[in-house]
C-alpha cells in the first residue's frame, strides 16, 4: 500500500496572494532569460566533466537530491553539480525574485534535475510548474512506466512510455466567464507544437528501440483540434516507416490499459489526456514515488520527480529517492552517458528486487540513507 503522502502533487501554500503572483512573474522573467540564449542543444561527445544544474526543491527534496548526488558520485559519473535554489529572495532593489545565480546556472548548463517544488493552489494564477514549462519551451514530457520486479502490483507487464505535449492544449490557461453562471475554457492546438511533439515521439521510439507509437485522441468529438494533432502525427509517421503507428480513441486506450497494459508501447497525446494517462500508468506500476519524468525543450531539458514534497516525512530520512534517481538516469541517457545510466539503473532495480532495503512507501522499514548506501555498494561492485 503506497504511502499517500508521496502521491500528493498539489500543495496549499501559506503565502499570500500577492507574493504568489510575484513569484510567477519572477518565474516568467527567469525563464525568459533562460530562453534568450538561443544556441541549440548539441549532444555531449567529449568525456570532460559536465555541469548540471540541480534544484533540490522543498520538503523531502533536499534529502533525495543528496541521495542521488551520492549515488552518482559512487558511480563516478563525470558530472559536476551546480545546486540552485529557486525560492524567491529579496533582490538588491528590494523586490522578491528568483535568484540571478539560478537563472544563469540553468542558462549555462542546459540540463537540469529538479526535486519537488511547493506550488500554491488558488484562483487567479497558474502553477509554478506550468509557468516553467511554458517559458522554457519544454514541449514534450516523457514518462516511462515500467513494472518493477520485486514491487508487486496487480499489473506486472507494464512497459509503456507516455509522451505528452507540454505547452498548450487544454492547459492553455485561457478561460472566461461569458455571463454569470456560464464559463468557457479554451483548448488550443497548434500545428507547430503538435508536429514538434509527434516528431519527438518517433525519434524517441527509434533511439530507444521501441516498436510502436500510438496516438491517443478524441477526434470523433473534437474534430478540428484533435484532428489537427492527429494529422501532424500521421505526417511524422511517414517520415519513420520502420516504427509502427496506430491511432486509438482515448476511451479505448483507457479500457484496454487497465485490462492489458502490455499491448501499448509509446503513447503520444495532447496535454490533458497525457496528464491523466501518464498518472494512470504511474498508478499501474506503483505510484508517483517510483516514476521518473523528463521534460524536453528546444533549449535544454529538465528532469524531475513528479511526486509531492511530502512535508510530513521531510527531514526524517524516510523518503524514497527512486523517482528522482530514475529521472537522473533518464538525464544521463539524454547526455549520452549510457554506461553509467545502465549501471545505476540496474543497481536500483536490484535493490528493490532483493527487498532487503525498502523504504516505507514500498512496504519496507529501511531508511533513505540505508537504501542509498545499498545502491552505492552495488554500483561500486559492478
Amino acid at each position, binding site marked *: 500500500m*503506497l504511502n499517500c503522502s508521496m*502521491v500528493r*502533487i498539489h500543495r496549499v501554500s501559506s503565502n499570500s496572494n500577492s507574493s504568489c503572483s510575484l513569484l510567477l512573474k519572477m518565474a516568467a522573467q527567469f525563464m525568459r532569460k533562460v530562453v534568450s540564449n538561443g544556441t541549440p542543444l548539441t549532444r555531449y561527445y567529449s568525456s570532460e566533466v559536465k555541469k548540471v544544474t540541480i534544484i533540490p526543491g522543498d520538503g523531502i527534496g533536499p534529502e533525495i537530491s543528496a541521495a542521488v548526488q551520492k549515488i552518482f558520485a559512487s558511480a563516478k559519473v563525470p558530472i559536476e553539480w551546480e545546486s540552485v535554489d529557486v525560492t524567491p529572495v529579496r533582490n538588491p532593489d528590494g523586490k522578491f525574485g528568483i535568484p540571478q545565480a539560478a537563472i544563469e546556472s540553468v542558462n549555462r548548463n542546459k540540463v537540469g534535475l529538479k526535486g519537488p517544488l511547493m506550488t500554491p*493552489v488558488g*484562483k*487567479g494564477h*497558474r*502553477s509554478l510548474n*506550468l509557468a516553467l514549462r511554458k517559458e522554457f519551451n519544454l514541449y514534450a514530457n516523457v514518462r516511462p512506466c515500467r513494472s518493477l520486479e520485486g514491487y508487486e*502490483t*496487480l499489473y506486472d507487464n507494464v512497459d509503456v512510455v507516455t509522451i505528452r505535449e507540454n505547452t498548450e492544449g*487544454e*492547459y492553455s*490557461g485561457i*478561460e*472566461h466567464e461569458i455571463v454569470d*453562471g*456560464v*464559463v*468557457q*475554457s*479554451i*483548448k*488550443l*492546438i*497548434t*500545428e*507547430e507544437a503538435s508536429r514538434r511533439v509527434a516528431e519527438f515521439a518517433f525519434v524517441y521510439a527509434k533511439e530507444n528501440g521501441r516498436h510502436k507509437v500510438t496516438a491517443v485522441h*478524441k*477526434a*470523433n*468529438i*473534437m*474534430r*478540428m*483540434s*484533435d*484532428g*489537427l494533432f492527429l494529422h501532424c502525427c500521421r505526417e511524422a509517421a511517414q517520415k519513420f516507416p520502420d516504427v509502427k503507428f496506430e491511432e486509438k480513441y*482515448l*476511451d*479505448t486506450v*483507457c*479500457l*484496454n*490499459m*487497465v*485490462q492489458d497494459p502490455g499491448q501499448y508501447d509509446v503513447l503520444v497525446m495532447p496535454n*490533458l489526456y497525457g*496528464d*491523466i*494517462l*501518464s*498518472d*494512470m500508468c*504511474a*498508478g*499501474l506500476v506503483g*505510484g*508517483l514515488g517510483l516514476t521518473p519524468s523528463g521534460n524536453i525543450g528546444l533549449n535544454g531539458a529538465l528532469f524531475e520527480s513528479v511526486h509531492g514534497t511530502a512535508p510530513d516525512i521531510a527531514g526524517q530520512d524516510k523518503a524514497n529517492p527512486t523517482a528522482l534517481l530514475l529521472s537522473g538516469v533518464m538525464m544521463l541517457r539524454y547526455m549520452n552517458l549510457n554506461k553509467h545510466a545502465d549501471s545505476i539503473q540496474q543497481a536500483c532495480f536490484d535493490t528493490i528486487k532483493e527487498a532487503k532495503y525498502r523504504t516505507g512507501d514500498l512496504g519496507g522499514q529501511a531508511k533513505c540513507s540505508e537504501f542509498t548506501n545499498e545502491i552505492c555498494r552495488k554500483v561500486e561492485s559492478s
Partner: protein
Amino acid sequence: YAGVPVDFEEVQMDPKSESNEDLEYAITSIRRNGVAIKGNIETGSMSRGVISRNVALRNELDLFINVLHCKSYPGVKARHKDIDIIIVRQNTEGEYAMLEHESCYVIVQQSMKVVTSENSERVARYAFEYAKKHGRKKVTTIHKANIMKLSDGLFLETSRKIAADYPEIEHSDMIIDNCCMQLVSNPHQFDVMIMTNLYGTIVSNVVCGLVGGAGLLSGKNYGDHYAIFEPGTRNTGTAIAGKNIANPIAMLNASVDMLEHLGHHYHADIINKAIQKTVNEDCIHTPDLGGQATSIDVVQNIVKYIQQTTKTSNCLNFNAQCRYLKCINIHTYIIISLTIR
C-alpha cells in the same frame, strides 16, 4: 420469452450518410415515445460540419445525465473484485460542446469547453438525490480545478454548494489524474462519482476495464422528459461485428434498466436473474471475457432461464416481436430477437 409488454419502434441510422435525416427521424420518434434503447452509433463522416450523432442525440433531447452503475460480476475474472461504483456524468456540455474554431489557416485550432452553473447544479442535485435514495454514503467530485480554475472551479463550487444540503452524505473531491491512479490501485474507496463529460469518458472506461470489459455494463441517459438506455462504454465494436462473438450482456442490461424505468419490475427481475445466472454461475462468456461462447450461446442460455421462470408463474401471452434501435455499419450488427410463441 419473458412476456414483456413492450412494443418496439425500430429506427436505422446509416453511418455513411452525410445528411441529418436519419437523426431527425430518430429524434422525432424518441420524442413521441419518451424512452429508447440504442446501440452506439458510428458517425462515418469525419468532416467538420457533421456533428457526432450520439452527441447530437443527447444535446437535442437534453439528456443531461449519464449514469453508469459499475458492479463487478463474481463470475468474471478481473484484477479487482467487488467493485460497486456509480458514475454520474454531465452529458451535454463540457468538452463535448462541439464548438470549434480555426484561426490562422488550419495551423491553430481552438476547441471550447463550456461549463454552466445550471447544468452543474442539475448533475450534482441528481447525484445526491440518487445517493440518498439508494443509501450511498459518499459522493466524490472529480475535476481539474487547479489548472482549469474557472470552468472546473465552477463545477466544483456548485457540487460543494449542493453537498451542503445533504449533510448525511460525505462529499469529497479529487483531481482527475490522482483519481485514475487511485482507481487502478484501490477502486473500493469510491462510491458515487460526479464529473464533467470528458472525465466521465475516461473514468467510465477505466472502471469498465477494471470490472472486466466493455461488453458488460449499461449506461442510462436521463433528461427531464426522455430517457435513453445504451451499452455503457459506447463502443461500436466494428472489428468484431457480424462474427457472432459480440457480448450481448451490455445491451441486455440496458434493456433491464429500461424495464425498471418503465416500472415493469417483474419482467426486469426475470431477465436480470437470468443474466446473473448465465454470467456468474454457468460462466458462459464470450471471447472478450476470456471465454469461448458465441453471442447466440449467451442469449440462448438466458432464454432458457427465462423460460424456466415463466413456466412456474402466471405469464401473459403476448405476441411481441422485439428488436432494438441499432447501428448499421458496413458489416452487420447485434440482433437480439425475442419472440413469444
